[in-house]
């Protein structure tokens, strides 16, 4: 998927997520993934929104997002110049004979075995979303009982030319 990553710094208050989501829903744009958690400074949260490039003309939505009173800063992260991570939890149906194969797969991908049952096993894996996609595909062969991914979070890479490209930033007053 050719995607955009928006990193939106917001005041951490009730209703903010509904406002953000409403702007997308109203225009019938689908959010591919969404991750929200408190940011480094108190009273603020960072929302990481991944949208499909083709489905959403980003400029207008970014401007509309920026109009929200509680939105402080919006950065668009270039996927090529940012680090992206995601966490996956999966419970896979495995017979005792197949268990070894799945554990081996998990080891190759540097995943962790969280729980083992008689006919199932629960694995966690974090990493680049593409890596998670590959892992998920391989697991599918065994029969996935339940799978949950967190949606990606991202930060800009640390080298010089790939700093945050600030789309919009509300500076101090005056």
């Amino acid at each position: 998927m050719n995607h955009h990553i928006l990193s939106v710094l917001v005041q951490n208050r009730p209703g903010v997520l509904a406002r953000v989501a409403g702007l997308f829903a109203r225009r019938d744009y689908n959010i591919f993934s969404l991750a929200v958690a408190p940011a480094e400074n108190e009273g603020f949260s960072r929302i990481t929104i991944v949208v499909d490039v083709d489905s959403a003309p980003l400029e207008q939505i970014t401007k509309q997002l920026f109009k929200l009173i509680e939105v402080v800063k919006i950065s668009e992260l270039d996927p090529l110049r940012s680090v992206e991570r995601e966490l996956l939890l999966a419970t896979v149906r495995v017979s005792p004979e197949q268990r070894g194969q799945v554990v081996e797969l998990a080891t190759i991908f540097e995943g962790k075995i969280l729980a083992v049952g008689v006919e199932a096993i629960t694995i966690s894996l974090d990493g680049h979303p593409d890596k998670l996609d590959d892992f998920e595909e391989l697991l599918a062969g065994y029969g996935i009982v339940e799978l949950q991914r967190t949606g990606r979070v991202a930060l800009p890479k640390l080298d010089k030319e790939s700093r945050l490209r600030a789309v919009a930033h509300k500076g101090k007053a005056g």
Partner: protein
Amino acid sequence: MKLTGAQALIKSLEMEGVEVMFGLPGGCILPAYDPLLDSSIRHILVRHEQGAGHMAEGYAHVTGRPGVAMVTSGPAATNMVTPLCDAYMDSIPMVCITGQVSTTAIGTDAFQECDTVGITRSVTKHNELVMTAQNLPMAVRQSFRIATTGRPGPTLIDVPKDVLQNSMEWYWPTDAEVVDSLPGYRPNVKGHPRMIKEAAKLILASERPILYVGGGILKARAADALRELAEMTDIHVVTTLMARGAFPDDHPLCLGMPGMHGNATAITALQRSDLLITLGARFDDRITGKVSTFAPDAKVIHVDIDPAEQGKVRRPDVPIVGDCRLVIEELIRAIRDMEQSGTPRADTGAWKSRISGWREQFPLSYEASEPGEALKPQYCLEQLRDNAPEGTILVSGVGQHQMWSSQYWRFNEPYTWVNSGGLGTMGFSVPAAIGAKVGRPDRTVWAVDGDGCFQMTAQELVTASVERIPIKVAILNNSYLGMVRQWQEMFYDERYSEVYLSPELPDFVKWAEAMGCVGIRVDSPEEVQPAIDKANSIDDRPVVVDFRVDAREKVFPMVPAGMGNDDLILPDSQMPRKGALK
């Protein structure tokens, strides 16, 4: 000082300078109505909450101050949705206070509970549910700041009943505290100097410039600055529906309204221009017609305080985010500087003579009625206009009568025209006129309404009578939903579907009288003038004049929906020379 939340709320409104509010009490907002008895704020008791909202809008339109409405929870809050959306679309500063069920009952489907902040989220600039009495003063201050600065708009404060009853220690946040509490709200008012210079360069180089001005001029109190810019550059001005009055209609440079029912000259001047100097306007679909064919040869300078308007419809060559008044003043300076340093001004002579030619050949026109024929609505408006006392404020509903009002009135002063432009809210005019009259009691306020619109909110005339707010209402009564009828005639093969109201019902004169107004019925052209004279002479109660007008009359010119501005339909008498609109 200990206060109840209710006392703190009313005191906060007083501190914000609120002199009047429009509302209707009910269960959850009850505590706030008690300290109101001891307050300096005048409260106007409406008959329906929607009326309170439109009154607040009308008040804000003519005074520039935020209109305030206060109602209870549930159905009262949902009745407020239409005025909030109306104010949002037309950028009207308005603060609405709604009651809410007690904090302990929220989310339990309690009596008269609804998710007010959820429902109004997309029709307000900002809204907030206040969960502690201590936060009320800050919430009020934030709401007023957000409603009145940047691009103005409606805000809403939802207050649970127990929050009104609880006690708090009174404090009044400082300006700095309010600004600090809104780290994500920093409206940009000063235009970028480089962009302003770029704009000045384009203006001096343009051979076919037009000032395309919208409601933003009025919000920015920029009418004087606009006039200076227009006169200094000698560039013609078109005023959109929301900007009527922002530039005087009797000024030689004024071309009037463009758009779907604009006049041929204003429409064509935009179409043929090589530079649209867009000030506080937003390329609304009613102005552009089919966007891909709109002003095809024009470069665009776009001045707007809302960054999201830049490039939303038409990609500007020079975007300037800022307050219209400040930007125009800078623009005037920049143009002067460039001229003084020898930058030549392009010759606009040929362009100006083309415009004069269009004006001569394509004036607004309608066929006057022959003796014995039905009364023409345009004639009624001309008579209302010619007999209106100096400074009269005109307030319209939505439909044919609104377009005729905008076309045939002469707006020579800002803030004398109030209408529902963006949302197109039928029923707007009666309550909005009441709000306007409350804001400007020194002015005559005429509401021009249709018979369809009038029946949506007429009950507020009871409010007007009881509160002694003597507005005047002219109903252009054609017994039809006239604009819909016009579309069905023109685009649906005269198949009239559900547009015929009734010539007999209601009896508008009796209805007016029942509401404490003077009612007058006018059937023929000879009765028009005496009825208007009588209406203008009454100042102790509202007056309703029921003008029985020709139902066949249509609004022209017209750019059919979805068509380009070059496809405009002129009155029959002008169609043969349409080719001259080149």
